[in-house]
């Protein structure tokens, strides 16, 4: 009787293992990026399974209690919370239902046997039947575990390839962004004064133009002075002509006087002959001075005409030069203003490009943290696989009713030894002591702690120890 008790008690416990592991790992298979959640479920599964083995061991010592437990096989086999987690996955539960069926048959047969006889020979037959039922279940459990292991390996391969590909793409993005930034900054340098670029060349050109304009302006002032002088000169010939007029008047009067003197000399006869000669010479002189007066008048008119021409030419040339200088100055100032505006725009654009580059760097830095979770979840999945493999080895080696198989303490120790991550250990403890899991270091939390630390120069972070 005690052997039957052991066997039957093992069965429901292994159901707990199978259901929990199926949920955990199929969770992973459904959506690879949720590998972490799946790991948690799988770990719960492994924990539950090993706890169940521990329970089984305690039941060995009370075979009577085990017999009573037979009637609860079906309800124990599928704990309510496990079923609630995935109510729609009826297909996934099919293999488990068939296992339950095997157990129902076993229970039925055991009931029949109990009723028929309590003799030693019927006990042996009863045991044989139970062992057979259990072996059938174990065979199926082995297949499920093998299947789960294959799925887990596949998940790890796929997520690693995906993470690697994302990483490569990030590298390309960062390189493209860096190149773009470098090119923009190089271009912008052209418009930063003092760097020998286009801004300096244009600036020098404008400077030359404006200093030329300045020079022209000075010359124009000199021109204006010259014009004023010429204008003053233009009035002089007229003054000269008034003197010439005076000369003609004097010459006319002298001529008249000479004529009168000649008449008076004729009246005086021979005594006036000398005076007549003098009067004639005076008349010649008056004619010469009249001729000089005419020449002066003519010359002054010529000079006045030339001076007026010069005055006009000077005025025209000054107007033309003034207009051109004004235009050149305007053009120079317009170009300078536009270059200054362009430089300002370039400066703003450069700042924007730098800001965008910094933002990309910060986002990439967060992505670097996120991608590392692929390695972390890979390790966690490998630990689940490790414990499943150990369980499988045990199932292959031992017959279900042998003590070694039920050495749950050894299995738990083995599982615990596989852990390398704090999160795994905390989950293990929480599941075993039936407490809620509180410690989880998610990607979001790691990123948040990174933000808190940002800016503190000396703070290397909680996860760094320097010896």
């Amino acid at each position, binding site marked *: 009787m005690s052997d039957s008790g052991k066997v039957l008690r093992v069965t429901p416990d292994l159901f707990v293992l199978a259901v929990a592991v199926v949920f955990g790992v199929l969770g992973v298979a459904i959506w690879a990026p949720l590998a972490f959640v799946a790991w948690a479920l799988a770990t719960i599964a492994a924990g539950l399974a090993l706890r169940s083995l521990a329970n089984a061991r305690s039941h060995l010592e009370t075979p009577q209690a085990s017999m009573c437990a037979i009637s609860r096989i079906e309800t124990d086999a599928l704990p309510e919370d496990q079923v609630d987690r995935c109510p729609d996955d009826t297909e996934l539960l099919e293999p488990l239902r068939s296992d339950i069926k095997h157990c129902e048959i076993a229970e039925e047969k055991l009931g029949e046997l109990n009723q028929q006889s309590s003799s030693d020979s019927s006990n042996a037959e009863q045991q044989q039947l139970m062992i057979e039922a259990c072996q059938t279940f174990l065979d199926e459990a082995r297949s499920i575990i093998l299947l789960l292991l294959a799925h887990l390996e596949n998940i790890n391969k796929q997520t690693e390839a995906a993470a690697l590909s994302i990483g490569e793409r990030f590298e390309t993005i960062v390189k493209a962004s860096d190149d773009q930034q470098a090119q923009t900054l190089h271009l912008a340098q052209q418009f930063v004064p003092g760097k020998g670029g286009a801004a300096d060349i244009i600036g020098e050109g404008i400077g030359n133009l404006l200093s030329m304009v300045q020079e022209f302006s000075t010359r124009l002032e000199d021109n204006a002075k010259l014009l004023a002088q010429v204008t003053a000169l233009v009035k002089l010939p007229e003054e000269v002509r008034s003197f010439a007029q005076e000369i003609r008047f004097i010459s006319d009067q002298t001529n008249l006087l000479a004529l009168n003197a000649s008449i008076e000399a004729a009246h005086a006869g021979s005594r006036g002959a000398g005076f007549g000669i003098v009067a004639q010479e005076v008349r010649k002189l008056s004619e010469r001075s009249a001729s000089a007066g005419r020449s002066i008048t003519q010359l002054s008119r010529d000079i006045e005409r030339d001076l007026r021409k010069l005055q006009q030419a000077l005025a025209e040339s000054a107007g033309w030069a003034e207009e051109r200088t004004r235009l050149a100055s305007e053009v120079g100032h317009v170009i300078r203003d536009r270059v200054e505006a362009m430089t300002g725009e370039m400066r703003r654009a450069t700042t924007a490009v730098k800001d965008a580059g910094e933002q990309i760097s910060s986002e990439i830095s967060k992505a670097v943290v996120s991608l590392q979770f692929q390695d972390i979840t890979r390790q966690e999945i490998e630990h689940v696989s490790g414990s499943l493999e150990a369980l499988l080895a045990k199932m292959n080696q031992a017959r279900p009713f042998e003590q070694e198989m039920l050495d749950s303490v050894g299995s738990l120790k083995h599982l615990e030894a596989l852990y390398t991550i704090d999160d795994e250990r905390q989950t293990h403890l929480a599941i075993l002591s039936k407490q809620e899991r509180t410690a989880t270091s998610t990607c979001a939390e790691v990123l948040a702690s990174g933000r808190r630390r940002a800016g503190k120069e000396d703070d*290397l972070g909680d996860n760094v120890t*320097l010896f």
Partner: protein
Amino acid sequence: MRCVMAVDDSVTMRQMVSFTLKQAGYEVVEAADGRDALSKLREQRVSLIITDLYMPNLDGIELIKQVRASPSYRFTPILMLTTESQGSKKSEGQAAGATGWIVKPFQPEQLLKVVKRVLP
């Protein structure tokens, strides 16, 4: 240019370490495990080694011990970059000759700060 060796059996981790350090101007040599690292160290001189703990063929602690046995690498800084955060393991690493211990995941700017701090 300073050359850093990144040892990890995870390609993703090597990629992330290498990417972070190259961005900051370091040259990076990658190795897939302790044995690969030792053979590459014979060919190339590096200024810093960043290694994972759990790796096939030769693990991080054993790698540190063997590297420290070589006179030319006696004082080269070695950082452990691992998911392991147990104090006992850290002490083991320290005893083997590790310079520092970083628990995964690392933040890029944080790794660069640590690297700058330990490089002579």
